């Protein structure tokens, strides 16, 4: 029984190993299985990481259903739906990218990964519109919650005023803008120094991050058309008052469609329709505990957004290796793993959307 192998057998790290098989694995299959199990376990930790927030959500919804009932009208379900579509589509492109990686078609992988990244950035763009809109209206976490309805024009003379957007949006957009400029400049430098792969990668990255502005513009356009979005300021105020009337007076709730844009008009209309004067809290004096809903909202969606950003970083790594042509039918693990991560991030949003936006 030959138990002692020739010495070089164990010392040669690359004996019958492919290009990307780490020295401590016996073969490609073992490496792939390890990675696959590893990423699934990582996804388990991610689910449990979010679980704390889902438990907090459940607890407060059970204990204080009225907060959720009042607060959800501030969220625009159509923007949420748009983002759901964007993420679902990005999962599709990701799945296709994984398939092409399995076939070893690196060129196709590049385009589908790029498509996924554009969608990811667009999601963040829409989210930025939603966030900044709420910040303008003082819809913040519990301690800072200070809702005030109406339009919030940026001070005259500022860029935000010229563009007709929130000042916060300008601040937020500086980051992707700088990233795009950085990649564009580097793409030029790489081109001049004859690094075609790096140059192509940088152009792709600039396009990928550019998706943010596509999303932001779509969100902004929607806000303009709907004048602040359905379920936004005036609409919310009206619904709020209808709700209060229903619970605090014997009169039938006013079911008249409300198409005015600020609460003074609503007051006027209420008076005209000879309904008893509204005695409950004014829209500007909402129960501060509504803020708990937005605490949970910001924690959940914020943590999710961080995962999207991390996903973009992972996808960038996949993009770079696709450009280098690393994937083969016997080596495509990393695309598969990042794909699984991306589907999980998508799935978490699929839960967040109905739980936060579709109450009622």
């Amino acid at each position: 029984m030959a138990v002692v192998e020739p010495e070089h057998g164990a010392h040669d790290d690359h004996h019958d190993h492919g290009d990307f098989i780490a020295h401590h694995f016996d073969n490609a299959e073992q490496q792939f299985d390890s990675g696959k199990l590893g990423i699934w376990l990582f996804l388990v930790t991610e689910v449990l990481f979010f679980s704390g927030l889902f438990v907090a959500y459940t607890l407060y919804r059970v204990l204080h259903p009225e907060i959720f009932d009042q607060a959800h009208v501030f969220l625009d379900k159509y923007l949420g739906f748009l983002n759901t579509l964007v993420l679902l589509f990005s999962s599709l492109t990701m799945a296709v990218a994984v398939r092409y990686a399995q076939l070893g078609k690196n060129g196709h992988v590049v385009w589908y990964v790029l498509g996924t990244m554009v969608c990811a950035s667009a999601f963040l763009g829409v989210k930025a519109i939603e966030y900044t809109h709420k910040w303008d209206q003082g819809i913040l976490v519990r301690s800072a919650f200070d809702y005030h309805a109406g339009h919030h024009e940026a001070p005259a003379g500022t860029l935000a005023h010229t563009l007709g957007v929130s000042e916060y949006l300008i601040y937020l957009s500086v980051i992707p803008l700088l990233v795009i400029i950085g990649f564009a400049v580097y793409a030029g430098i790489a081109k001049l120094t004859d690094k075609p792969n790096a140059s192509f990668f940088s152009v792709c990255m600039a396009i990928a991050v550019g998706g943010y502005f596509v999303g932001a513009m779509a969100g902004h356009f929607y806000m303009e058309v709907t004048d602040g979005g359905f379920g936004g300021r005036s609409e919310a105020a009206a619904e709020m008052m209808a709700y209060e009337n229903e619970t605090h007076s014997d009169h039938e709730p006013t079911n008249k469609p409300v198409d005015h844009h600020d609460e003074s008009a609503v007051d006027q209309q209420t008076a005209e329709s000879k309904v008893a004067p509204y005695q409950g809290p004014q829209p500007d004096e909402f129960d501060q505990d509504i803020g708990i809903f937005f605490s949970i909202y910001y924690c959940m969606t914020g943590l999710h957004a961080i995962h999207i950003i991390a996903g973009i970083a992972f996808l960038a790594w996949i993009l770079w290796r696709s450009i280098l042509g690393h994937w083969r039918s016997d080596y495509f693990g990393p695309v598969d793993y990042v794909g699984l991560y991306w589907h999980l991030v998508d799935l978490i949003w699929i839960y967040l959307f109905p739980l936060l936006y579709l109450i009622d």
Partner: protein
Amino acid sequence: MATAAERKKLFGHAENNYLNCTKGIKSWMFTVDHKRIGVMYLIGVTTALFLAGVFALVLRSQLWSYDNTLLTDKMYNQMFTLHGAVMVFAFIIPSIPAALGNFVLPMMLGAKDVAFPRLNLASFYLWIFGTGFLLFAILSGKGLDTGWTFYTPYSIRTDTGVIYATFGAFILGFSSIFTGLNFLVTVNTMRAPGQGWFKMPLFLWGLYSTSIIQVLATPVLGITLLLLIAEKTMHIGIFDPKYGGDPVLFQHFFWFYSHPAVYIMILPGMGVISELIAVYSQKKVFGYSFIAFSSVAIALLGFLVWGHHMFTSGQSVVVTLIFSAITFTVAIPSAVKVFNWLATMYKGSIALTTPMCYALSFIFLFGIGGLTGLFLGALSTDIHLHDTYFVVAHFHFVMVGGTLTALLGGVFHWWPKMFGRMYNDMLGRVSCLLVFLGFNLTFFPQFVMGARGMPRRYASYDPEFQIFHQWSTIGAFVLGVGILLGFGVLVYAAFKGPKISGNPFGAASLEWQSSSPPDFHNFIHKPILCDPYDFGALVYDEELDTYIHREFMEPSEQPEMEPEPQVH
């Protein structure tokens, strides 16, 4: 079969090994070798142990007399908080899995490394950063006075360094997750060909169960600490009653992690003890599958008992009853282990070496620690004992008497493998005796004063308790001397001890089928798979003064097989 020269190369003392195959600080800082990472972790957790141990001695000095003014009340609060936080997050949780486990686990599987070596290194650096943040709470001058549990609402109100410390614990959590994830995957995919689950050493079952908890529980701690940081900075109203939050929710979240984390601390220790008892009794471990499954059972039951930390926090009576009942069931798998260890020793060929002495004191101390847990799990007695020194004594018997003792035993057991040199066994046993006596002197009086009503976390106390506290303080210093002596014996051995061959203790698990210290690739040959407790497969090689698997010996060198006893 191998010639004597080959055997010397394979199982002798190796001059060229993982410690000196590459040189320079960078070859250690950027290493992905699990053995070097294990050694670095060992240095790291030892540093944390000394730091937190010094905090403990300062605390004990303050408690020497009932009106001592060594520390102000505020300083006392900070001192016990840092002692607890550093001990729990930076020392005990990574101690056995990340230090010993990293070194031993791949070798027990006959593998070259863990599945994700770079993740392993990342885990170590996260440990460094996390511990750094934890300690920054002191260096920033703010301190930390919440207790290691960071209970709300006090942790939101206090202006001490809660944010640094919680962020540190958050990072340490990810360090722990990475180690656990790595081990789970490694055990699943990288076992030697033919090594089934039930041919693994029991230490691996302990580590595997630990890893399950690390992966499933630690993320919940992560999000809890993030929410606490958000609460403290932005007042989001989830934990803070001032803003409509629920402080008891924090306790639920925290203990959902931290109770399973208690089993992160003890399960690897139990795994070490299973190895030590079998090797130093030279007897096949009794009830292998019972010990293996009891580890898994403890890991799973550990997720269902967190409410027993909150019996007095205003839970409903029904919930309290259920948590109490499930708490008792944890005693069953724990007792299964203890009885199996005792049965393993029965009629074994027991060698009272240093590791075995530590293993025996583990059984004794863990027995007391575990049984006093039942007093606390019983509702009526817990109302009386809650927040007294009885609780302090109970968890120190399990954590120090259990885990620290197992760690020391394990380090003494694997030290010759790590560094290829033998320690002074007599001094090692003296250190074990000092640890055992000092430990009991420290914590046994705490049971008595706890039962008599001495509350925990007080800087001063009624004069009637002074005599107990003085015993306890003397014991703490004896314990400290014992640990320092053990440390000295080991460090001296690593540099000056006599050189030693691959398997001096006659252990049958795969990691001993290598040179001491092991080669960079762990094994120069393919290890021969055998039952980890089949000590009959080993043959003593006089020339090397070591034990070698029978198949490596020439037929002429093998002793005659003893005939099977005939039963009439």
